[in-house]
């Protein structure tokens, strides 16, 4: 059945992807068919449609979902859905709306209008504030609907929404509204945004410079289908902000980081990664360890153990990545160094910068091996924004199918894309070899691009120096 899905007007590119991920989580999609390579294709009963004259960035979308129960579950778990509604009518004028609502099948309306039930009508407008007086008048205008129930403003059983779009073009960057649309519907479910102030970073005990903000962390956990019984890994765990969101949804978590001060010590016994979980009464991570993503310490033969890998790799914009081995050593400037035995105990191994291309290769390889079939890899990927071109080149892997890419613009020239990939093929020796080749290809392109001016300089050099070149 078709529902009206109204989004919060933020993170526009993430909204549909979140709904699609949650539809998968709640079983609206089934993995059934096989493609030519034997991989599974997920077929989904979910469909999208835009109201007439609405731009894709509009908060109003129509979504087809298999049942009201699924719609409610999706809405309640989401971060970006203001509400999913059973639409009783929509029109461009109030006269037409009346006609539409009256024509809406009786049997769909009657159960929600009975005298035993309680209800409330909420008047809302996108792009304009409606005065209290106007709201009351609009509600009075709905007298053609035979509400028999008791009005309850606090805790009604049924919430009805009267929403309209107005001419918002001038204020918020959306294309002008050609024609006003009015929607009337019954609320099926809505996001619990209250969890965002609960988890906001400023109340978090232990923070690092690149801690993921709560809203984004929850979106990432939703993309990763976090739920009880699942094991979720973050190879760049830092202060644990992504895993906190996954643990909130009941998943078991595991994190690794190359920085021992962050994973082991924090800022004291009550201010460390563990305390960030205790603070919210969440289940502690199953494991935290110090490891290098470039040389992962997993036993040979261990595979398909994680249900999702969710991370924000250190791609050198806010915090640079590090890997084992001295910089000079890897470049061959100095010869191999043997740590004297008496110094081994307290020895601090040197690390070298970890390039984006290498980091991506390691991450995809790790995910290909360690994710279960159908498991998800969710991570941020940095992109330099070029004029006119919107299709960024993402790293690829034969085991993975990209199911969502959501852009978050960070500055004039730089954005990050949240990529969600599903493992659709098993990891075999052939695949490992193929992946290696693909990676080399990617690395070459990446190097070419680095020569033109790498990401770091694109972000940090003054804008006019770049303009001068182009």
């Amino acid at each position, binding site marked *: 059945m078709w529902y009206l899905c109204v989004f919060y007007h933020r993170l526009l590119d993430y909204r549909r992807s979140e709904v699609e991920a949650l539809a998968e989580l709640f079983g609206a999609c089934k993995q059934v068919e096989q493609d030519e390579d034997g991989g599974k294709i997920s077929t989904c009963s979910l469909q999208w449609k835009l109201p007439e004259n609405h731009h894709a960035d509009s908060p109003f979308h129509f979504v087809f979902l298999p049942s009201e129960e699924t719609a409610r579950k999706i809405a309640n778990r989401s971060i970006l859905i203001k509400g999913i509604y059973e639409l009783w009518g929509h029109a461009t004028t109030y006269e037409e709306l009346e006609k539409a609502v009256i024509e809406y099948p009786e049997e769909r309306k009657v159960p929600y209008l009975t005298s035993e039930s309680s209800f409330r009508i909420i008047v809302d407008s996108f792009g304009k504030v409606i005065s209290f007086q106007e709201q009351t008048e609009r509600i009075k205008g709905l007298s053609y609907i035979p509400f028999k129930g008791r009005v309850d403003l606090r805790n009604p059983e049924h919430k009805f929404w009267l929403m309209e779009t107005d001419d918002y073009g001038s204020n918020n960057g959306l294309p002008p509204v050609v024609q006003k649309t009015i929607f009337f519907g019954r609320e099926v479910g809505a996001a619990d945004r209250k969890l965002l102030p609960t988890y906001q970073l400023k109340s978090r005990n232990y923070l690092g410079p690149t801690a993921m903000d709560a809203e984004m962390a929850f979106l990432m956990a939703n993309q990763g289908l976090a739920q009880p019984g699942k094991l979720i890994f973050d190879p760049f765990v830092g202060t644990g902000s992504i895993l906190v969101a996954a643990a909130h949804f009941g998943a078991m978590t595991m994190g690794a980081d190359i920085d021992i001060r962050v994973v082991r010590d924090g800022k004291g016994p009550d201010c460390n990664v563990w305390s960030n979980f205790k603070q919210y009464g969440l289940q502690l991570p199953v494991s935290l360890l110090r490891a290098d993503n470039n*040389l992962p310490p997993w036993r040979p033969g261990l595979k398909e153990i994680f249900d999702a890998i969710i991370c924000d790799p250190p791609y050198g914009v806010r915090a640079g990545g590090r890997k084992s081995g001295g910089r000079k050593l890897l470049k061959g400037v100095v010869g191999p160094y043997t740590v004297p035995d008496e110094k081994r105990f307290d020895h601090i191994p040197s690390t070298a910068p970890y390039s984006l291309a290498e980091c991506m290769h390691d991450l995809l390889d790790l995910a290909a091996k360690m994710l279960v079939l159908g498991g998800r890899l969710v991570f941020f990927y940095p992109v330099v924004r070029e004029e006119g071109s919107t299709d960024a080149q993402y790293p690829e892997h034969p085991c993975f199918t990209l199911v969502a890419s959501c852009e978050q613009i960070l500055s004039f020239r730089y954005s990050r894309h949240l990529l969600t990939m599903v493992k659709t093929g098993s990891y075999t020796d052939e695949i490992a070899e193929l992946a290696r080749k693909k990676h080399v290809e990617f690395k070459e392109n990446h190097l070419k691009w680095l020569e033109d001016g790498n990401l770091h300089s694109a972000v940090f050099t003054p804008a006019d120096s770049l303009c001068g070149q182009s």
Partner: protein
Amino acid sequence: MRLLTHNMLASNIKGVTSGYPLRIEAHQSAAKEADFNADFLRNVFPKIDWPALVSAAKTLGYGDLPEEAEPSMLESDEFLRRFHHALLEVHVEEGALVCPETGRRFPVNKGIPNMLLHEDEV
């Protein structure tokens, strides 16, 4: 460090061919209650190297795991409880994981195994 973690880790020193299972040297260990989740245990069971878990649990003084295990045992609540305890409730707080081939000790401090390699090991 729980034994689940121990079960997943190996010594990845360059040239080492049999870096698993790591021998546990426990200076301080503890048992801490963890939430019981049967679904998780059933999901993770096929990935566990059972003999390594049994021997690691014994090292830490827990000998109630059967020497051999098969999926049908997951029906038994008693078995799940024992598996849960060994896998998730037994912790090594201080000590080391020792590479069986080279004897290299990977320290475990405050429950965090440090698997980072020295320059001459990569």
